[in-house]
């Protein structure tokens, strides 16, 4: 069977798809790709449905080889180099990893989470409807753990002669404030705290992982204490514990929690926040429901339009390619003994 074999990777490399929904009532975190835009682009490039399981690299890159056949691959999300046997692949471009060849993913130069998709996805069992790893509950991924050297990921489809495609456009790099909707517990904060939250610059601290991003900045003052009876948590909730330093809850969040939530990052901007690196600044802007829903709708249309945005790769051949190719099909050597008389 055709497979990708991991030669090396960072410690938090994992398999992720859209996530595990429908079980939050039992305490199951949805998980899923930190940057869904990146996941959808990588998948579109190899002809997959947008939420097919892919490898999520976290800051550090890695290397993998194709075994048992050729594999069509693509990389998107954080800005990382991709090279096959030392030859660079252009950004947002699918490439055929031939049997025995090695693909190398470089460190992220911008952003944190990069997605490597393979045509057809990976044949690993789903748990509760998803292949996303949730490390704390040892669910999904490969045997409930991150990927490591020598792991073998069976590919659900072979590389075949599919035309290589690329995406000409990168979603415009948007450095504007992350959009939030106030609530559900904005009444637990002083008006001053809300103003501070919306008008100040925060820094994503080194305490940032798939579960949550701890921010550092001015202290947000609670109006009536910070102990609430635990209630539900959604992705993007900005909770403020006693320290007054906000934490944005991300894909691996717990399903319930006991701190007041001042605001919620809108669904369409969570991918962008996920790619803000520790040590980098972040600002927030409050929007109304209308704008948030319009953004959700725009994101959905963008994902649906991805397959139509693909263009074929025009290969510019090297001298070696030209010499190796049979450029004048049909011509034969007159003295070839196999030529019929």
């Amino acid at each position, binding site marked *: 069977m055709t497979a990708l074999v991991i030669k090396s990777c960072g410690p938090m490399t994992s398999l992720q798809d859209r996530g595990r*929904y*429908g*079980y*939050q*009532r*039992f*305490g*199951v975190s949805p998980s899923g790709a930190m940057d869904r835009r990146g996941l959808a682009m990588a998948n579109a490039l190899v002809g997959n449905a947008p939420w097919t399981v892919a490898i999520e690299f976290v800051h550090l890159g890695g290397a993998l080889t194709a075994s048992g056949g050729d594999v069509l691959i693509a990389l998107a999300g954080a800005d990382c180099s991709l090279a096959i046997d030392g030859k660079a692949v252009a950004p947002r471009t699918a490439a055929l990893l031939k049997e025995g060849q090695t693909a190398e993913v470089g460190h992220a130069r911008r952003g944190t989470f990069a997605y490597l998709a393979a045509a057809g996805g990976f044949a690993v069992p789903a*748990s*509760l409807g998803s292949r996303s790893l949730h490390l*704390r*509950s*040892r*669910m999904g991924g490969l045997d409930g753990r991150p990927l490591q050297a020598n792991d073998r990921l069976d590919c659900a489809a072979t590389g075949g002669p599919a035309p290589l495609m690329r995406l000409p456009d990168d979603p415009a790099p948007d450095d504007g404030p992350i959009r*939030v*909707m*106030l*609530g*559900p*517990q904005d009444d637990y904060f002083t008006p001053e705290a809300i103003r501070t939250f919306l008008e100040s610059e925060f820094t994503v601290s080194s305490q940032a992982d798939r579960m949550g991003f701890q921010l550092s900045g001015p202290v947000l003052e609670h109006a009536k204490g910070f102990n*609430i*009876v*635990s*209630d*539900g948590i*959604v992705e*993007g*909730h900005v909770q403020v514990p006693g320290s007054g330093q906000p934490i944005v809850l991300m894909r691996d969040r*717990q*399903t*319930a929690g006991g701190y007041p*939530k001042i605001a*919620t*990052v*809108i*669904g*369409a901007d969570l991918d962008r926040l996920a790619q803000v690196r520790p040590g980098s600044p972040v600002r927030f802007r409050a929007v109304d*429901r209308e704008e*948030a*829903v319009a*953004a*959700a*709708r725009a994101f*959905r249309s963008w994902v649906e339009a991805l397959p139509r945005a693909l263009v074929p790769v025009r290969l510019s051949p090297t001298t070696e390619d030209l010499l190796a190719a049979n450029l004048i099909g049909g011509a034969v050597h007159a003295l070839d003994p196999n030529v019929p008389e």
Partner: protein
Amino acid sequence: MKAFCSGTPVQAPRILPCGDSALSVEFGDTIDPEVNGRVLALDEALRRKPLPGILETVPTYRSLLVHFDPVAADFAELSQHLLSEAEGLAPQATSGRRWKVPVVYGGPNGIDLEEVAERHGMSPARLIELHSGAVYRIYMLGFMPGFAYLGGLDPRLATPRRVHPRARIPSGSIIIGGAQAAVASIECPSGWHLLGRTPVRSYDPGREPVFLFSAGDEIVFEPVGPSRWDALERAAEAGEPVAEQVTP
């Protein structure tokens, strides 16, 4: 509602927005069986008669979190619908399911038992008697898959959380923190006190059902000796629920 003599005035539910694709129907801000009963009643009503656009619901102590598709559902319409639905509902007492959960108290399985008993000026045996003598209500599942938050702890056992949380407690830990009690499902960090351990897996991905307990169920603890633990642990390992369903 004579069954609920909590003294908490019933407040009208309110809708709290949670970003563009979720909202919380809040019935109160306390740990109270009537408030939780209203949460579970709305949850049950929505499961019986789903509203279009709702993706999943998550009952908690005091509110029902409703995830919806922001493109398919209109927030104002959905809110109106949920409020009118909530209005006419009688609080759900319990789900009608009661589980007998075997527990080995103290020793290596409950390393904080003696200290907690001493703190309350009672013998470990008395503590076990009080802890296993109560009927607990599962208010919600959360934090970790299958982790059950319980109400019903004898007030004489209420114990502030540990100053230094532990990075890891074993699966099946029977724990208390403040006025709350819980059954931990899988290994997890915790600042609560460990009284004992059960072989029951409230979450077992290899078993059907994967999750044993639901919010609204009741739990009674049955003290068992360490020798019984091995047999129960083997049975649980083989996929048996081990927890017995008993009539309330």
